[in-house]
């Protein structure tokens, strides 16, 4: 089971897929993270962020002879969330180890396939992690050692650190970016923007959402896998780096039936142009029999992928065996599979997360619920400012 999950994760991350199978689960509580030895930062290590603000800082990644680049920073008392992005152009990157005094948060050496809850971290283009991603993954004050890897030359590789030193809240700013000659039959980008705002508002997020529209030149039929999709994510660089791009394409050339993909869980947010920055959604996969776009369906897809991009996993996976790491999301287990088809549908799980925005499959009803901690993860995102 774990091998299959690992392969799934690796392939999806490789394709920029923001859909990752989750092991562990909130029924058993998060798996314990291994202890680390004593850790102290050198006196020159910078303290992250600015009190009362959300900031982005960048550090050059200098790889040693073993291929690891280490950065030591100090986590202040008032840090509420932190996002790390290891950016090396279109290359795969990963965090080899992220540790504090007495605690290892991420350890690729013992978990190379990213199977360990709550981060499920492994290689990705512009690999990213956020703290907290669940109830007990807030960073403690003190030294934080970040060790990164790159599959490329590593020249010009950068660690981006987004630090929030204020309470949750603010505005999530999203851009619907029309790619090339992409058309929305029977709809407009503005209509999609309105519907997306409506869907997100309905989740009860304690933040505002602002959706704008934009356009970029590009192929409206990129491949879901490969350089074109990666380059697409590099094509839009808004003046405000904290705007999250949602690339609206006509369709994927290779995966006809893909509705949308996120850059990762989380993707590289706040780093415009990074290879996992932004979500891609396909218009044609949201057409109805009359040939027009189902705007509501497309808005729900977009909101779902945005949830992945900002750090949310599926509450329950298809077979009802795997669940997200959050303790307060409803779990729909395999025993709810009343028709015996091997999967738990939204309808079978209506009272157990089937109405959650992050359920694995759409249902015969709207899915706009989020648990308090799902809302908290989103509201604490360092791109919410």
């Amino acid at each position, binding site marked *: 089971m774990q091998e299959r999950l690992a392969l799934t994760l690796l392939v999806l991350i490789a394709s920029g897929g923001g859909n990752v199978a989750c092991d562990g689960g909130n029924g058993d509580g998060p798996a314990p993270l291994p202890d680390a030895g004593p850790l102290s930062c050198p006196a020159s290590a910078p303290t992250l962020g600015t009190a009362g603000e959300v900031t982005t800082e960048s550090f050059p990644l200098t790889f040693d002879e073993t291929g690891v680049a280490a950065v030591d920073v100090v986590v202040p008392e008032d840090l509420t969330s932190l996002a790390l992005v290891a950016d090396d152009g279109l290359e795969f990157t990963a965090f080899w180890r992220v540790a504090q005094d007495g605690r290892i948060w991420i350890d690729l050496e013992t978990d190379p396939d990213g199977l360990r809850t709550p981060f499920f971290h492994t290689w990705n283009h512009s690999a990213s992690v956020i703290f907290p991603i669940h109830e007990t993954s807030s960073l403690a004050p003190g030294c934080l050692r970040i060790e990164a890897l790159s599959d490329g030359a590593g020249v010009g590789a950068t660690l981006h650190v987004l630090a929030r030193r204020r309470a949750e809240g603010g505005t999530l700013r999203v851009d619907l970016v029309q790619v090339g000659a992409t058309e929305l039959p029977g709809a407009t980008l503005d209509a999609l923007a309105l519907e997306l705002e409506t869907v997100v508002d309905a989740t009860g997020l304690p933040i505002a959402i602002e959706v704008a529209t934009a*356009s970029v*030149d590009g192929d409206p039929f990129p491949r879901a896998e490969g350089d074109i999709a990666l380059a697409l994510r590099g094509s839009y660089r808004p003046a405000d780096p904290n705007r999250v791009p949602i690339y609206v394409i006509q369709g994927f050339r290779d995966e006809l*039936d893909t509705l949308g993909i996120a850059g990762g869980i989380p993707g590289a947010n706040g780093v415009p142009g990074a290879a996992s920055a932004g979500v891609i959604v396909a218009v044609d996969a949201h057409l109805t029999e009359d040939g027009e776009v189902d705007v509501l*369906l497309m808005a729900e897809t977009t909101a779902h992928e945005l949830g992945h991009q900002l750090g949310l996993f599926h509450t329950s996976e298809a077979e009802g065996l795997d669940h997200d790491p959050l303790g307060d999301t409803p779990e729909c287990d395999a025993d709810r599979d009343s028709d015996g088809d091997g999967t738990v*549908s939204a*309808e079978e799980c209506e009272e157990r997360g089937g109405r959650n925005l992050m359920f694995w*499959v759409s249902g015969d009803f709207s899915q706009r619920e989020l648990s308090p901690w799902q809302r908290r993860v989103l509201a604490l995102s360092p791109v919410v400012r």
Partner: protein
Amino acid sequence: MTSKRHPSLRPTSLRATSLRPTSLRSTSLSTSLRSTALRSTLRLVALVLALLTPTWVSAQSPAEGANAARQGAPEGTEALAMRLRARHVRDLPRPETLRDPADLARLRWLAEHHRWLVVRTRALLLLAHDPSPDTRTLVLRVLDSTAPAIVRAAALRATEAWALDAMLRTRLERAAREGDPRLAEPARLRLSAASTTDATHPSAADSTHPSAADPADSINPSPTD
């Protein structure tokens, strides 16, 4: 720099996706952020419309479970349709689990009748593994229809395992002239590969399917609803 200390951790099998198309990274940008005032107006209009036409909401909602209950749908089609509505491709049923004749009949129904074209597309992609005459007839009918490109492209994929006979060649030649790359590219590739084969093995050219008559000839060429 690669991870020399931990070579097993490098995603070497995925490196093919890591080429650097630097020219693409400077793709020109033409941002056109539009006014929030316009969107505020649109929101107001949408709200008014919603109030005036309350049924619009249900008509546009994802609640369309009755869709599969349309006349003629094989029993159990609705449950299969729900599985084909997975948000991610990896969660779709695998072809090998849908070889039961009843499942294939359900897929054929969905491929032509489901309200969402993504469900039709997924049904057609799954039918690529079914060589039955019924499926062949359906696929040709979809290819001949005026369905949106995403559906016809899926039908084209469903022919990949077929012998390239005259009736398929006709469809491929037509698809190759389409402007949509999801149709044109695979059609051109198949025709190109066939011409290479023809040149080296002339006897293989235009091999005829056992059912020489085009099953689509006797069927309504516009099956979409």
